[in-house]
């Protein structure tokens, strides 16, 4: 469908002179039209990132701006040798792995149900958009109050847990509560992407496998899943990078207590709450680099073909 539009724009007729004039003016027009987008995107990303790179080699605290001094890589050394940095990195990777894995399974089940749905489609799709649209901070509060032993309902609904169990008193239960909130909020997005992937699987192939006597499981693993591989991979890539930036739920639910702070939260605390722009910038750079590493690993490991998925890339 994309090729037709492009071809009308650049007819492949053989009129060299006129054609080159035309393509030149098309080139100019195209560049002019994308220029505002490029400038805007660079103002808020490239420039601040370079600035962070620069600030990260200084000992620079906003409360004492005159005491700024060049310290070389010592901020990085401090960060990388501090166990707190590694605890946060570890817990962030854990959040990412747990939430994405569970979302993938639940999201797929939801997508299967929606795919089979004939009536009440609108109601289900409307409902599934509500978690997606709700402010993360609001869902964080909803779940925090739900898990609270003073005001919540979770303890009274779960029979194997005491009524006065404090979910936010220890790392493991607090991480579980944060993950629940995160999974609740983002599963709908995953399930909609998977639903779009399911729609691309040809019904004929599934039917053919059925005729050949394949069981439900065999059809799922041998026909359906392989055929929606690129949709799954793109969904995983986007969700994983998103999950690695986890911040809102942690801020609201535990404020980083009980070793639940993610790497984003640690960076925020250094920079904005403690005004340590030098140290915070070093953490910013490390955070950015780790996102790059994760993106690279996912793309290499699962051979995600973004160009094919995006058709242009």
């Amino acid at each position, binding site marked *: 469908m994309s090729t037709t539009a492009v071809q009308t724009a650049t007819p492949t007729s053989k009129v060299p002179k006129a054609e080159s004039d035309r393509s030149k003016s098309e080139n100019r027009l195209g*560049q002019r039209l994308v220029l505002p*987008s490029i400038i805007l995107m660079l103002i808020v990303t490239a420039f*601040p990132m370079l600035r962070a790179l620069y600030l990260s080699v200084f000992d620079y605290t906003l409360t004492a701006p005159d005491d700024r001094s060049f310290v070389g890589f010592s901020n990085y050394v401090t960060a990388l040798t501090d166990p707190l940095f590694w605890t946060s990195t570890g817990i962030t990777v854990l959040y990412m792995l747990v939430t994405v894995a569970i979302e993938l399974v639940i999201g797929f089940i939801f997508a299967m149900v929606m795919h089979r749905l004939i009536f009440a489609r609108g109601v289900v799709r409307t*409902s599934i*958009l509500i978690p997606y649209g709700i402010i*993360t901070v609001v869902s964080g509060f909803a779940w925090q109050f739900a898990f609270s032993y003073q*005001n919540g309902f979770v303890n009274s609904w779960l029979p194997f847990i005491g009524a006065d169990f404090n979910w936010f008193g220890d790392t493991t239960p607090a991480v579980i509560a944060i993950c629940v909130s995160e999974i609740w909020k983002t599963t709908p997005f995953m399930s909609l992407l998977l639903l779009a992937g399911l729609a691309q699987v040809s019904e004929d192939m599934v039917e053919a496998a059925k005729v050949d006597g394949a069981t439900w499981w065999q059809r799922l693993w041998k026909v359906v899943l392989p055929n929606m591989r690129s949709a799954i991979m*793109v969904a995983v890539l986007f969700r994983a990078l998103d999950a690695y930036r986890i911040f809102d739920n942690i801020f609201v639910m535990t404020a980083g207590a009980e070793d639940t702070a993610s790497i*984003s939260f640690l960076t925020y605390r250094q920079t*904005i709450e403690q005004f340590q722009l030098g140290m915070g910038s070093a953490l910013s750079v490390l955070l950015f680099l780790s996102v790059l590493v994760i993106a690279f690993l996912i793309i290499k490991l699962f051979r995600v073909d973004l160009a094919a998925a995006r058709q242009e890339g």
Partner: protein
Amino acid sequence: MKKLGVPIGVTLILLWCLLPVAWIISLSFKSEESITAGNPGFLPGEGTFAGWANYDKVLSDPLYDYFPRAILNSIGISLIATALSVIVATLAAYAIARLEFKGKRLVLSLALVIAMFPVVSLVGPLFDMWRTLGIYDTWIGLIIPYMSFTLPLAIWTLSAFFREIPWEMEQAAQVDGATSWQAFRKVIVPLAAPGVFTAAILTFFFAWNDFVFGISLTSTEAARPIPASLAFFVGADPFNRPASLLAAAAVISTIPIIIIVLLFQRKIVAGLTSGAVKG
């Protein structure tokens, strides 16, 4: 068994999606006193139902003045950022869908990188830059980052929509005697409008939802949007978060989202999946 699968699935999906929403609504109707005393359970118990008192309080009590102000900030900032972002993205998406030019890959790669960017790693330098420029704690100081961060999504969604438009119709209209401007306005604009509208909804969701920029680039109620305002919500007693009032405020901030979802469910689903999968 086979017939039961789908109804059970639907029930589970509905429970999953609506339970926390029902819970926060229930919480918002519990009286403040009962919450402070500890009032576990899902529904307001005997004598703990507060009616509209919590809503009344967060909207009109001078103690919570910052909340109505935050609503105003969020509406203003989100709408302006959405409008500007969609205009800029429309130009870019048109160029990407329709024209051949050098640098096309650059725009798409840049958009991809920004979509993956860890937002927190930018707030330190932005905090510093905005203070130097004097736009820290102002509307414009939030509008600029919202625009930049919603551009990738808007560009993808729009270029996916624009590729589906049969551009030949424009020429056909011209052959029938329309000027090129008339052809564009009468044929292409109506076809493109639904896509532009979808991109606008998704952009608005992002801006309405943002928390990191909201807490980092504001310090007073001059520009603080709803999510940040909720996070700093304190009542008369700073050591006890007023859960039921906070719940009422949370419900109020969710109303616009529910309305948009109810009205435009189809468009949102199409936009989300085309931007991310078909792309």
